[in-house]
C-alpha cells in the first residue's frame, strides 16, 4: 500500500511536468497546426536558465522564475521569426524538419553555454518531505501541481474569455476566415510560439530542483511530452493534462512493479498503442479536437 502511494506520488509529480510540456505541444498545434520537436530543448533552456539565474546570479526565486520564462519565451519567438516565418514554402513536413534541426542546434548551444555538467538547485520551499501514510511527498511536487493548476486555469481563461485567445484558435480553425476578419496572422503565430515555449520554460524551471539539469535533458522530456499530448489528444487542453498525468503514473507504476528499465519505454509503448487503437487520442474526438 505504502509502495503504491509512493509510486503514485512520484508518478503525479512527473505526470504534472509531462502535462505542462504536452500543453506546450498542444497549444502550438492548435493555433498553428505545427509540431515543434524542439520543444524539449526549450524545457532544457528553462531548467538551465533557472539554475543560472538563481544560483549563478543570485536572483531570488520569483524573479528568477519570471525572467526564465521571459527569456525562453523570447528565444521561442526569435526561433519563430528566424527559422519558421522565413520559410518560403511553409509545408508542414518542411517546418517539422526545421524544428528537428533547431532542437539539435539548441542542444549544441546549451552545451556551449553550460558545458556538459549537470546542475542541481535547492527546492522552491526548503521544507522536509511530507509524510503521508508512510509515503514521502516532496514539497516541490506540491509546487509543481500548483503551477500546473494555475497554468490550466490561466490557459482556459485565455482561450475562452479573451478575444486574443479566440483569435488564436480562429487562426487554426479557419485560416482564410481568420485572415479576412482582420486577425494579424503572423503576430498570432509569433504569440503562439512565445506562449508555447514559455510553457516549456515553466516546466523546465519547475523541475530544476528535483532533477539534474543538463544540456541533453530536453530530448527525452520533449518526446515524453509529445507522447502525453498524443495520448490525450493533440490539440486538446484537457487531453494534454490527462495524457501527462496518465503517462507519469503508468511510468512510475511500470518502474515500481515491473522493471526500472521500463521507465522510458512506457511512453513509447503507450504512443504505439494509442496510434494503433485510437489515433485521435483519448479526448481528441473529431469534435473536441481544439481547445
Amino acid at each position, binding site marked *: 500500500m505504502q509502495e503504491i502511494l509512493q509510486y503514485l506520488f512520484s508518478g503525479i509529480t512527473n505526470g504534472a511536468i509531462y502535462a505542462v510540456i504536452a500543453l506546450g505541444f498542444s497549444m502550438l498545434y492548435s493555433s498553428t497546426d505545427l509540431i515543434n520537436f524542439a520543444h524539449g530543448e526549450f524545457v532544457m533552456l528553462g531548467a538551465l536558465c533557472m539554475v543560472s539565474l538563481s544560483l549563478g546570479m543570485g536572483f531570488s526565486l520569483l524573479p528568477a522564475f519570471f525572467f526564465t520564462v521571459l527569456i525562453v519565451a523570447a528565444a521561442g519567438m526569435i526561433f519563430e521569426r528566424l527559422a519558421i516565418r522565413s520559410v518560403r514554402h511553409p509545408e508542414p513536413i518542411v517546418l517539422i524538419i526545421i524544428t528537428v534541426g533547431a532542437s539539435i542546434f539548441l542542444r549544441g548551444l546549451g552545451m556551449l553555454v553550460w558545458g556538459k555538467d549537470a546542475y542541481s538547485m535547492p527546492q522552491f520551499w526548503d521544507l522536509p518531505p511530507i509524510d503521508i501514510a508512510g509515503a514521502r511527498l516532496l514539497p516541490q511536487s506540491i509546487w509543481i501541481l500548483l503551477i500546473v493548476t494555475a497554468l490550466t486555469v490561466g490557459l482556459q481563461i*485565455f482561450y475562452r474569455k479573451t478575444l*486574443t*485567445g479566440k483569435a488564436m484558435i480562429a487562426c487554426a480553425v479557419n485560416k482564410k*476566415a481568420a*485572415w*479576412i*476578419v*482582420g*486577425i494579424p496572422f503572423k503576430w498570432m503565430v509569433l504569440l503562439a510560439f512565445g506562449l508555447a515555449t514559455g510553457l516549456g520554460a515553466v516546466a523546465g524551471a519547475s523541475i530544476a530542483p528535483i532533477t539534474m539539469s543538463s544540456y541533453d535533458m530536453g530530448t527525452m522530456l520533449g518526446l515524453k511530452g509529445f507522447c502525453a499530448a498524443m495520448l490525450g489528444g493533440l490539440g486538446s487542453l484537457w487531453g494534454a493534462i490527462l495524457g501527462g498525468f496518465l503517462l507519469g503514473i503508468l511510468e512510475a507504476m511500470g518502474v515500481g512493479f515491473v522493471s526500472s528499465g521500463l521507465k522510458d519505454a512506457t511512453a513509447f509503448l503507450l504512443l504505439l498503442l494509442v496510434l494503433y487503437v485510437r489515433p485521435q487520442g483519448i479526448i481528441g474526438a473529431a469534435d473536441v479536437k481544439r481547445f
Partner: protein
Amino acid sequence: MTDNKPLLEIQGIGKAFGGVQALEDVEFHLEKASINGLIGPNGAGKTTLFNVITGIFPPDSGQIRFAGKSIQALEVHERVRTGIARTFQNVELFESMSVLENILVGMYTRTRSGMIESILRLAHTRREEKQARDRAMELLEFVGLQDYAHQKSSDLPFGWQRLVELARALAAEPRLLLLDEPAAGLNISETNQLGDLILEICSRGITILLVEHDMSLTMSISDQIVVLDQGKKIAEGPPRDIQANEAVVEAYLGKGKN
C-alpha cells in the same frame, strides 16, 4: 459627411495569372452608402477583383484608393481595420466555435485589449468583453439568429451560416462590405430576406459591392452595376441600362446570328 468623394476608387487594375489575364485595366468607383452589383459570366474576374481589393494578392498594375487614400501598401488585416470587410462564396466560418464566438472574433480589429493588457487590466477587459458580447448579440438579432447564439456554427443550416458570416463581417464595422455570391444556395424566401438585409445594411451608411448570379436580386437592390467579361469592364450603369445593354447580353448569351 462633407465630401462627396467616392468611397472606393478602382483605377486601371490589371492582374495576370501566368498567361491568363484575369483583370485588365478595370476602372470604376463606388459612391458612399450605395449598393453596387458586380456581374459577369464565370471567369470574368469578379472574385479576383475581390481578392485584389481585400489585399489577398496585389494587382500587377493600377491603384485602389479607399476613402481618398491609397491602400496599396496595406496588408489584409490593416485593410479590415480601415473598414473593408467581405464574405466568401463558400462560407468560411470558425466551424468548431459557437455562433456568438464567430461574431466576437469578427470584432477583433475593433477591440483594443491585447493579451498582456487583458491580464494586467482585468476590469477594463471585462467591461470591453461585455460590450463586445452585447454588440455581437445585437448583430445576431439583426440577422435574426439571436436564439442560436450558443449553437455550434457548423450545426446551422447553410443559409443561416451565410447570415452568421454576414453578421461577422458587420462586426468589423466596415465602411465597405464585399459580398461574394451571398444568395448562392439559398431558397427564394431566404434570398428575399437577404435582399432586405442588404438594403438595411446600406441604409446604415455602409457601401456594398455585391457579386451575385441571382439577377433578380442584383437588379432589384443595386443602385449601380458593373459588368466584367474576361477581365475587362464592358458596361457600367443603373440596372435598367445594363439590362438593355447589348454588350452585356452578348457576354452572357453569346453573339446573335443576325
